[in-house]
């Protein structure tokens, strides 16, 4: 983990602690669904930036996969919410993630060439690591609805594969 990845992890952790009164463990299923939906949208946003700014074919392939997969997951999540007759609920953690993403977007859009590719890949790795930790260790154990839990378990498998893929990309770009 390099300095930037470490800083991102610390920021994420501090974000959680800053809202200790509303910790991630206390979120309802519908709030958790909102966080996951926002997390997917953020990664799709990063991928679109990569498609716009990078000329590296590997980065393009990875970004297209992120868009394809995260859109598929969100589609399933929306279908499940519709089936359950429920709506995802905005919360402190979704807002915190969006705030953090804005900073990353500002940073990514200021970079070009190899510098951009490396930073995008590193961010994808640290982002998936942080989200996977949150989903696996906090969300899944606390989700009450079995169908929502099943969807998150499937989602975790997908995001772990993304983490591996991002790891491969980081190594290749070094």
């Amino acid at each position: 983990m390099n300095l930037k990845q470490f800083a991102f992890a610390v920021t994420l952790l501090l974000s959680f602690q800053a809202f200790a009164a509303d910790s991630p463990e206390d979120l309802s299923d519908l709030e958790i669904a909102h966080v996951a939906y926002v997390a997917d949208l953020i990664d799709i946003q990063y991928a679109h930036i990569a498609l716009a700014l990078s000329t590296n074919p590997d980065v393009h392939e990875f970004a297209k996969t992120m868009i394809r997969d995260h859109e598929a997951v969100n589609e399933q999540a929306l279908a499940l919410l519709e089936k359950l007759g429920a709506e995802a609920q905005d919360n402190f953690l979704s807002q915190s993630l969006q705030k953090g993403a804005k900073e990353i977007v500002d940073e990514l859009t200021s970079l070009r060439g190899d510098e951009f590719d490396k930073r995008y890949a590193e961010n994808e790795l640290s982002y998936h690591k942080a989200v996977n930790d949150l989903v696996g260790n906090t969300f899944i154990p606390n989700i009450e609805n079995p169908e929502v839990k099943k969807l998150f378990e499937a989602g975790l498998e997908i995001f772990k594969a993304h983490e591996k893929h991002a790891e491969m990309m980081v190594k290749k770009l070094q």
Partner: protein
Amino acid sequence: MVRNSIGVYLLFAVFLIWTVSAVQSVAAEPDPSEHIIEIVGFKYIPDTLSVKAGDTVVWINKDIVPHTATADDLSFDTGELKKDESTGIVVTKDMTLSYYCIYHPSMRASLSLE
């Protein structure tokens, strides 16, 4: 009359030989089989499969996200398989046997030719 009878016997003998050889050749080469490979949890199941030329391999995607089964040298490709979609490919003697998911390169598997 005798000549005609010999002709009939000869014709019958030729027909018999042809029939026996046809039956033997059918017995030697069993009908092509269909094999199913499921894509579940970012894995091809089974990840190794013994096949013979003429068999059909069908890949079915059970994951939420799209996958492919694509030969390492791109000589065969199922194309994008969305959730619950499937595609079959007929095995040929000279086909490339190792394949992967073009979207998720860590997903790998192979066929082996009998």
